[in-house]
């Protein structure tokens, strides 16, 4: 029967709008303005300006990913232990905030963090030292953690919730203390969720240009900002594509890790 024919629209769509565009990035990245082959656009990453932006982005993305993981794991465990209202909590954490535009939410952190902002108002009222992190890398990390935390919570939760409670009980019966149970049972079993969470947080954090612009005050340039400017301001698509290829190497590295750990081919989206 011609069920296979049904896949035609999607195959056509993904070829035209996923694969062909990616090939075009490679084409532009590997040629110069005249269309001749060159590696210059890729090697341009080595210039001090670009490598500094890449290094800065890697650093901030790494820190945000670690913070997200440390915040998300306990949260996912707590969600697992809850009996009622579990689903509505997940909606509250993940879906509902998205209905308030992400740019506005990020910008609201400006109001909260500013020298005369809400947080410093409260700190001053309590006679505590003020917090001056707006327009610093710390503010960008905060913005990244704020925006991408849900992407860490959900995959870990999805894995934890499937772990058979009897395994945990058996470990406890056999004399393991809660810490040992966590280290030897829960952690190894939840590794696929952790890896897919790391991918889901690290990639957008590494490549963002919005959070750094809004909370970094335009002074801190990440690799995403440089690529964005090549396309929208300088109109040097070849250089922008070349730098994107470098960026994709990190993403592909991440994808390989998640593909190895997630054999089923189902990314834990929801």
């Amino acid at each position: 029967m011609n069920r296979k024919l049904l896949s035609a629209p999607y195959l056509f769509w993904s070829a035209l709008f996923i694969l062909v565009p990616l090939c075009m990035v490679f084409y532009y990245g590997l040629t110069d303005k005249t269309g001749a082959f060159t590696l210059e656009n890729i090697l341009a990453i080595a210039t001090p300006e670009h490598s500094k932006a890449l290094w800065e982005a890697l650093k901030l993305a790494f820190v945000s990913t670690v913070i997200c993981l440390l915040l998300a794991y306990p949260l996912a465990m707590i969600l697992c232990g809850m009996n009622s209202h579990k689903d509505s909590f997940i909606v509250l954490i993940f879906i509902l905030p998205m209905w308030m535009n992400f740019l506005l939410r990020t910008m609201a952190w400006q109001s909260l963090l500013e020298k005369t902002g809400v947080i410093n108002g409260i700190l001053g009222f309590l006679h505590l030292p003020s917090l001056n992190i707006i327009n610093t890398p710390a503010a960008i990390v905060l913005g990244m953690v704020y925006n991408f935390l849900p992407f860490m919570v959900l995959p870990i939760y999805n894995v934890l919730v499937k772990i058979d409670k009897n395994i945990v009980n058996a470990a406890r019966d056999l004399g393991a203390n809660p810490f040992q149970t966590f280290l030897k049972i829960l952690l190894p079993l939840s590794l696929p969720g952790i890896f897919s969470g790391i991918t889901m947080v690290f990639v957008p954090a590494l490549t963002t240009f919005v959070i750094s612009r809004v909370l970094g005050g335009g002074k801190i340039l990440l690799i995403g900002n440089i690529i964005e400017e090549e396309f929208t301001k300088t109109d040097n698509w070849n250089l922008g594509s070349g730098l994107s290829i470098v960026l994709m190497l990190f993403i592909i590295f991440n994808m390989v890790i998640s593909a190895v750990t997630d054999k089923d081919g189902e990314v834990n989206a929801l």
Partner: protein
Amino acid sequence: MSRLYGAVRKFYIALIFLFLYAPIATLIVLSFNASKTRAKWGGFTLKWYQSLFGNDIILQALWNTLAIAFLSALIATVIGTVACISMQNMRRSTRSLIMGVTNIPMLNADIVTGISLMLLFISIGIRFGFGTILLAHITFNIPYVILSVMPRMKQLNPSTYEAALDLGASHIQAFFKVVFPDILPGIFSGFLMAFTMSLDDFIITHFTKGPGIDTLSTKIYTEVKKGIKPEMYALSTIIFVSVLILLLLINYTPRAGHKKAR
């Protein structure tokens, strides 16, 4: 011991909530702020809510955003669901190849997806505008649909479909009477997910939009430097509160005999 643990848990959840909702609360407060700047509180007012409905630029951006979100989610749901059905009978290797391609827009960086689509549209020579944004949104929405319909498909018992055929149903009848009701919750949550993602997207829209057209996201982005118009706060407050009320209604309406679908 366990009471202390319970208290710690509640405190932790409260902290995370505070973290996630502090900016949202800030925006809601700002929408009632009589002073035009974010920096100071000028007293309570409803005037931004009034002037919002006279602001054609914002309303046009809202309309574009909703139209693109609805159309892209709808088309992505149809294409994605049909793709899931067709993948059922495929060889495992073919299927995992297709799923690999499906995962690309989800795992790849939005900026790369945006740039790659922009390069494609330029080389085809389509005029940038509503159409290009819509095509881009459909593309990144399809994976969300497939990933929420696929698990439902796998849970299906193939015998029920065959039983329907044995009992004289045509393929189409068997599909709509047997398969479709079972995968409907997956289709529905895929649609909602796609709609939400499209609504909240900025980066891909930024690269695929033309000069004359704006969604709420791109409008806000151009305003970030100059200062956001307070009407924007009013609009987002309205959207947020209506979704919140909708969710409360769905969650707390007793539905006899139905298990809540996720």
